[in-house]
């Protein structure tokens, strides 16, 4: 999941902190992965796959990300790099503001982390790869939907900030539940769909390239 917020809508402190968090973690990640060149081509391939699946029309206002799946493939560190590169490329092609890259990177990475952690935990309980990957993906995406809702809720304060108008805060009380009401069902359907796809892919990987899943860990 990511947000299509154009430049100039969010307050600087908000998108700025998105960048700050992204850069801090990215710096740590790049330092830690400096010598791990084995995962570079696979991560790049996951970026390419994510970019392509994001542009496949599904017939509903949702697109697949494969963030959890690529997280399972490349692991926690490389999935941050992948999230950053995906969002940077999307922004440069006009599919999101440049200012939103930091926030979107965090959202995608958040999905991947939750997915990876859940998958690892569930995997201890059950060896059914399809089930564990699907459940992990579903919960990761639903969690990230709440993160997006939270981000949008904070960002809606924007007009009031601009004009020092307190009426806006009152309006926010009304618009946020409406926003949740519209977003959440789509997010849940999308999460279920992506969960099924991720589950099938992971199960398939387990058959043809079991070492890939090990590498992701």
């Amino acid at each position, binding site marked *: 999941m990511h947000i299509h917020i154009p430049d100039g809508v969010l307050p600087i402190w908000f998108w700025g902190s998105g960048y700050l968090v992204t850069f801090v973690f990215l710096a740590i990640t790049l330092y830690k992965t400096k010598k791990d060149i084995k995962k570079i081509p696979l991560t790049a391939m996951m970026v390419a796959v994510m970019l392509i699946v994001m542009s496949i029309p599904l017939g509903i206002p949702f697109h697949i990300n494969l963030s959890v799946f690529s997280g399972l493939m490349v692991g926690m560190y490389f999935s941050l790099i992948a999230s950053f590169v995906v969002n940077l490329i999307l922004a440069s092609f006009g599919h999101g503001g440049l200012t939103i890259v930091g926030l979107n990177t965090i959202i995608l990475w958040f999905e991947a982390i939750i997915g990876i952690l859940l998958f690892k935990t569930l995997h201890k309980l059950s060896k059914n790869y399809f089930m564990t990957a699907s459940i992990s993906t579903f919960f990761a995406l639903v969690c990230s939907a709440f993160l997006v809702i939270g981000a949008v809720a904070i960002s809606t304060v924007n007009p009031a900030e601009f004009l020092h108008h307190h009426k806006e805060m009152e309006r926010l009380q009304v618009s946020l539940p409406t926003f949740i009401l519209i977003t959440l069902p789509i997010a849940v359907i999308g999460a279920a769909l992506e969960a099924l796809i991720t589950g099938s892919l992971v199960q398939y990987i387990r*058959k*043809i*390239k*079991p*070492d890939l899943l090990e590498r992701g860990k």
Partner: protein
Amino acid sequence: MKEEIVKVDCLKHVYPDKTEVSVCGLSFVVHRGEKVVLIGPNGSGKTTLLHHIIGLLKATEGEIKVFGLNPCKNFKKVVRRIGVVFQNVDEQLIGPTVWDDIAFSPMNYGLSKKEVKKRVEKIIKELKIEYLKNKIPRYLSGGEKKKVAIAGALVIEPELLVLDEALSELDPESKRIMIRKFNELNKKNKITIVLATNEIDMVKKFADTVYVLEAGEIKYRGSPKEFFKKKIKYEICRH
């Protein structure tokens, strides 16, 4: 007696999906300065054999020596001396531009920028691809991509050149230039060349020694003259 550069004895490889590919029959031996054409239909095991020579695959059974070493165990040492051109050339071009791609290996091997520049300029001149040097690989035709990949393999000045269907997409004129170039390199620099193909005329134009591989078995080893005399080609071409 000439030095043995490659020696392969009855290989067997099991892929992760449990598919077994074996290359058995006669031993596969390549001497220094030799031009070997490995001919066989699709799926006969040519690529598997080449991948073992380069050190990409680890043999489950059998023995393989390249420059007297096991290429899988001594990958870095061995591969530094080998130039490779694969069948799917699109995947082989990594550099952002043609120039960058040809410079890819020498830069990674730590050669000085000056030396890399000298080598790249030399090879693009020799292969007559100066006009491509600033282009982005994606925009090249199949034949042009192949030439760039060949340049990228030759630029490291290899002792052994492994070519997997390397000339297949070239037009007749480019093919002629490349064959002339390979022959020249072979004569002047004593480069050993192994070319895998399913084109019979490459045997006539290029080979010192011919190996025929069919369904994982090396069925024939000999000179091109003998090869044509025995009319072995007819068996291959029917596939």
